């Protein structure tokens, strides 16, 4: 438990340090240091951390576990390739010399090499595999684990001549080291990923490689598992065979020794008996004297002539299988020993026979029982087995049939537990038992009434198997990782890099540059793909050119709609000098929805407006047409400006599926009085110039845009224009014109340029503003329509007004009133009389028809325009609306009898005057005009 806590601390420290460094880089001025300085600092910090790892490792029964490699890897993977290399060198070199003050000498070279290699691994992987970005957690873990595997393998390789110790080191520290370093790197990446923005391998490349690496990884893992399993099975089998061989070899050797001792002993006893017998001793006595089980005397023919056992008398030795073996004594052999075997006569009884040739021919055969043999050899057997070794630590023991251990002559004591029933085992069958408290493999064989046990502790038995498995699997891991990386890079170079090249070209193409060509020719497939793409793009280019042409035509068409809808001939009213108006529109490349419009209502009212439709292109042009037509049709009914926009708004809101809207500023000016009423539907405020002031913004409460929402009310504003006052309308194309630096033209600059236009004519005012906007934008493309309208009120001559009750008796007074004025001007009498007739006709009409109740009045307004030499007379009555101009002209060719005097009066007026106009604006307004010389 303590060890786990210590290991956690060791593993967590690099994680905390890397988080700390990361935050410092993100939050403080540290980030402003240059790259080299930063890399050196990172390298030093993690190098220091690696040294800390060396000096304060966790003790694992003699081996030391630390996170030195993790520190170095983190530096390389997370903080940059140079940092990784620097810290690797620091950590590695320090480790090399650290033996001088206590670090383990045994792993000195392995640790040094693997630390330096870890630094380079982190650096190279970051640079070439992760495109100088952080790896993902999974890769981090894998890299940490594999680096430690390499470390472990290095311990083997640097200690090939002392593999046992190397193995014990690896066995102790492999698992903790691999876990601690792997998890440490993983945690460092994970923590930084948590606090920082995700800046891993680019998403596009990731998508392409992820699938590939997934399958590559699976294939490699699968191969690794198969080969590793095979290795394990093979090594286990080899190990088992080796164990069996070791054990049985030991038994065979001991058995040979025991048998030869016993054979020698038995023969020597038999020789003594033979000598005694030849001195004519009685075999019965000899049997007792020598404590043997049986004595047989066999003659030259192989027949038992004398025996201590009467049953054997006259037995022909050649008849029994065992006995026949002794017939060799009748030939050239002088002694023979048989094995201890069950007797043919009585299988329950074991006998070992020894025979010696007699001087007089024939031989003597002595049978020994098991007890007799053991009695003789028991003391020497421990000497025989004492020096027998099985492997390095294994040994041989002997037990008797009662499983009693033979006492060793040197007093060594053995203790076997968990012993199975040996007699039931097959010959050469291996079994396990605990010998002196150690799990061991055993094999047993019976000889001379003993069981010989060869014993091999499991630790030794499996040592070579384990070491083989460790080394092989570690090597395989490295080999497969190498293979994975190799295939990964091959695929990257051959396929993915080329795909990226093509992608790059394609993204240039899709961003609009159709002149880009793809040229990847590293192999035939990519060359063919490049050609196909190039061909497709060139085809596409042609299609686009055609489509562009069509679109341009459509744009031209909508631009034409826009332009043709607006008055473009200036001056629009050449014979009017009571006002001057000029407008211009410069359309942007893409058609916008700006428009202006103006028209006279009767002689005395001028409506003018400017508007801007949201959006661009054909829909904007269509919406603009609709708005313009609606406004005009409502304006022509003579209603107030606020009502015009209100009603236009209602109409525009209907079926406005495109959700477009239009801002507008509209004014109606009474040219006689100079009274201008205006309404604003969300448009930019115009500027007004008066005699006293330069152009200033005419702010009014703007209403909501048209087409946005129904039920909106608009405010009507009024002001009186004096002679020379000028109003300048514009759209946001002027104030929002941009220069190369993306700055806006602005209202202040507009006001400034207009201040230089105090005495300019309307056309010049527009031209000056346009010129200034062009100067400002300095070649930057025009984004929106630039539209302006300028109106100057010039006023009319002084108007005289005459108001009377609608009674024909007032006609002479009216004519006299006009005559007097006209004569003053110096008009010829006949012209004056024509006016007299007109007054007579029109007033008498009013008196007769306008007021049935005879209670109304009429107004006569006389306006003499000296400069244009024109007389204008306006008749106003407040009776029910009646347009005299709609009365049918009389037939001037009929006979007197067929004639009717009706309609003659107005007919004469029309004939006598230059123009006669009627409109109704809360009153019947009839205006007649005539020029004079």
């Amino acid at each position, binding site marked *: 438990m303590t060890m786990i806590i210590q290991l956690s601390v060791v593993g967590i420290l690099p994680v905390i340090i890397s988080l700390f460094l990361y935050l410092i880089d993100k939050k403080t001025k540290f980030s402003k240091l240059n790259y080299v300085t930063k890399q050196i600092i990172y390298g030093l910090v993690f190098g220091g951390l690696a040294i800390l790892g060396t000096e304060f490792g966790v003790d694992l029964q003699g081996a030391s576990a630390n996170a030195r490699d993790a520190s170095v890897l983190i530096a390389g993977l997370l903080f940059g390739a140079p940092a990784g290399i620097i810290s690797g060198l620091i950590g590695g070199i320090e480790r090399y010399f650290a033996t001088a003050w206590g670090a383990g000498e045994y792993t000195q070279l392995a640790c040094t090499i693997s630390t330096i290699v870890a630094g380079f691994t982190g650096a190279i992987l970051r640079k070439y595999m992760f495109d100088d970005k952080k790896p993902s957690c999974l890769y981090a873990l894998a890299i940490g684990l594999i680096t430690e595997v390499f470390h472990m393998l290095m311990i083997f390789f640097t200690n090939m001549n002392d593999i046992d110790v190397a193995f014990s080191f690896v066995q102790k520290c492999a698992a903790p080291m691999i876990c601690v370093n792997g998890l440490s790197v993983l945690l460092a990446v994970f923590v930084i990923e948590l606090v920082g923005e995700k800046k891993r391998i680019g998403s596009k490349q990731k998508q392409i490689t992820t699938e590939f690496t997934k399958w590559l990884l699976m294939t490699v893992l699968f191969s690794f598992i198969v080969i590793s399993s095979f290795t394990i099975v093979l090594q286990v089998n080899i190990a088992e065979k080796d164990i069996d061989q070791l054990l049985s070899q030991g038994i065979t050797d001991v058995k040979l020794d025991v048998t030869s001792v016993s054979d020698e002993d038995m023969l020597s006893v038999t020789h003594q008996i033979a000598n005694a017998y030849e001195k004519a001793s009685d075999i019965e006595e000899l049997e007792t004297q020598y404590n043997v089980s049986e004595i047989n005397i066999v003659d030259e023919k192989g027949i038992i002539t004398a025996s201590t056992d009467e049953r054997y008398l006259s037995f022909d030795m050649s008849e029994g299988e065992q006995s026949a073996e002794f017939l060799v004594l009748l030939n050239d052999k002088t002694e023979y020993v048989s094995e201890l075997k069950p007797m043919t006569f009585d299988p329950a009884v074991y006998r070992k026979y020894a025979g010696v040739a007699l001087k007089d021919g024939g031989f003597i055969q002595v049978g020994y029982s098991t007890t007799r043999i053991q009695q003789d050899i028991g003391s020497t057997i421990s000497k025989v087995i004492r020096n027998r070794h099985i492997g390095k630590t294994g040994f041989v023991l002997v037990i008797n049939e009662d499983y009693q251990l033979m006492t060793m002559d040197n007093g060594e004591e053995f203790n076997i537990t968990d012993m199975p029933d040996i007699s039931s085992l097959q010959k050469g069958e291996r079994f396990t038992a605990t010998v002196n408290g150690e799990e061991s493999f055993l094999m047993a064989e019976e000889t001379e009434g003993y069981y010989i046990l060869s014993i091999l502790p499991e630790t030794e038995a499996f040592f070579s198997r384990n070491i083989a498995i460790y080394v092989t699997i570690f090597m395989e891991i490295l080999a497969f990782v190498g293979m994975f990386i190799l295939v990964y890079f091959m695929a990257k170079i051959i396929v993915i890099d080329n795909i990226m090249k093509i992608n790059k070209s394609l993204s240039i193409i899709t961003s609009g540059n159709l002149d880009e060509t793809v040229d990847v020719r590293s192999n035939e497939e990519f060359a063919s793909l490049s050609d196909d793409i190039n061909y497709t793009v060139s085809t596409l280019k042609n299609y686009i050119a055609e489509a562009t042409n069509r679109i341009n035509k459509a744009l031209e068409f909508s631009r034409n709609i826009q332009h043709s809808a607006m008055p473009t001939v200036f001056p629009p009213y050449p014979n009017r000098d009571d006002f001057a108006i000029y407008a211009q529109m410069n359309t942007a490349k893409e058609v916008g929805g700006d428009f202006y419009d103006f028209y006279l209502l009767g002689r005395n009212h001028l409506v003018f407006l400017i508007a801007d439709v949201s959006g661009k292109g054909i829909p904007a042009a269509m919406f603009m047409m609709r708005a313009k037509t609606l406004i005009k049709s409502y304006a022509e009914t003579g209603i107030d400006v606020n009502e015009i926009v209100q009603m236009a708004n209602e109409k525009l809101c209907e079926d406005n599926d495109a959700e477009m809207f239009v801002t507008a500023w509209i004014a109606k000016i009474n040219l006689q009085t100079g009274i201008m009423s205006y309404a604003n539907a969300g448009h930019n405020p115009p500027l007004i110039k008066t005699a006293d002031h330069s152009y200033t913004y005419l702010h009014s409460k703007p209403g909501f845009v048209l087409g946005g929402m129904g039920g909106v009310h608009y405010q009507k504003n009024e002001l009186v224009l004096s002679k020379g006052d000028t109003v300048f309308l514009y759209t946001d194309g002027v104030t929002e014109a941009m220069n190369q630096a993306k700055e806006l033209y602005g209202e202040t600059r507009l006001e400034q340029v207009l201040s230089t236009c105090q005495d300019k004519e309307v056309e010049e005012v527009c031209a000056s503003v346009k010129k200034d906007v062009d100067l400002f934008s300095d070649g930057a493309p025009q984004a929106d329509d630039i539209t302006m309208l300028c109106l100057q009120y010039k006023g009319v001559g002084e108007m005289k007004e005459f108001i009377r009750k609608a009674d024909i008796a007032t*006609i002479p007074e009216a004519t006299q009133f006009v005559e007097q004025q006209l004569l003053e001007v110096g008009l010829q009498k006949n012209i004056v*009389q024509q006016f007299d*007739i007109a007054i*007579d006709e029109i007033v008498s009409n009013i008196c007769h028809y306008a007021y049935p109740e005879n209670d109304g009045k009429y107004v006569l307004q006389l306006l003499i325009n000296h400069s244009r030499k024109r007389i204008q007379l306006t008749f106003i009555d407040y009776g029910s609306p009646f347009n005299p101009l709609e009365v049918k002209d009389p037939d001037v060719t009929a006979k007197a009898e067929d004639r009717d*005097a009706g309609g003659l*009066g107005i007919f*004469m007026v029309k004939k006598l005057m230059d123009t006669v106009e009627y409109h109704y604006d809360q009153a019947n307004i009839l205006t007649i005009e005539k020029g004079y010389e």
Partner: protein
Amino acid sequence: MNIRTENNNDELTMFIEGRLDTTTAPSLEAEISQNIEGIKTLILDFESLEYISSAGLRVLLSAQKKMNKQGKLLIRNVNEDVRSVLDMTGFTSILTIE
């Protein structure tokens, strides 16, 4: 407007002076109807007529219609301005202008 009348048997001459318009036409009409009884020739002398409006024309038309039944109507000394009005209104074609 002033009207001076010269009666010579069945010939009546009316000298009209001033303006023959809405306000004055009714008095000419009254003058004619008072004196037209038994008149074969009605002569309207326009020498001093300043101008004539539709109300005057209406009187001329009704006088013409009446005289068509009992004799004739002659218009005499029509000045240029008045003639242009008569031309304009097609009255020259129904009136006998000397």
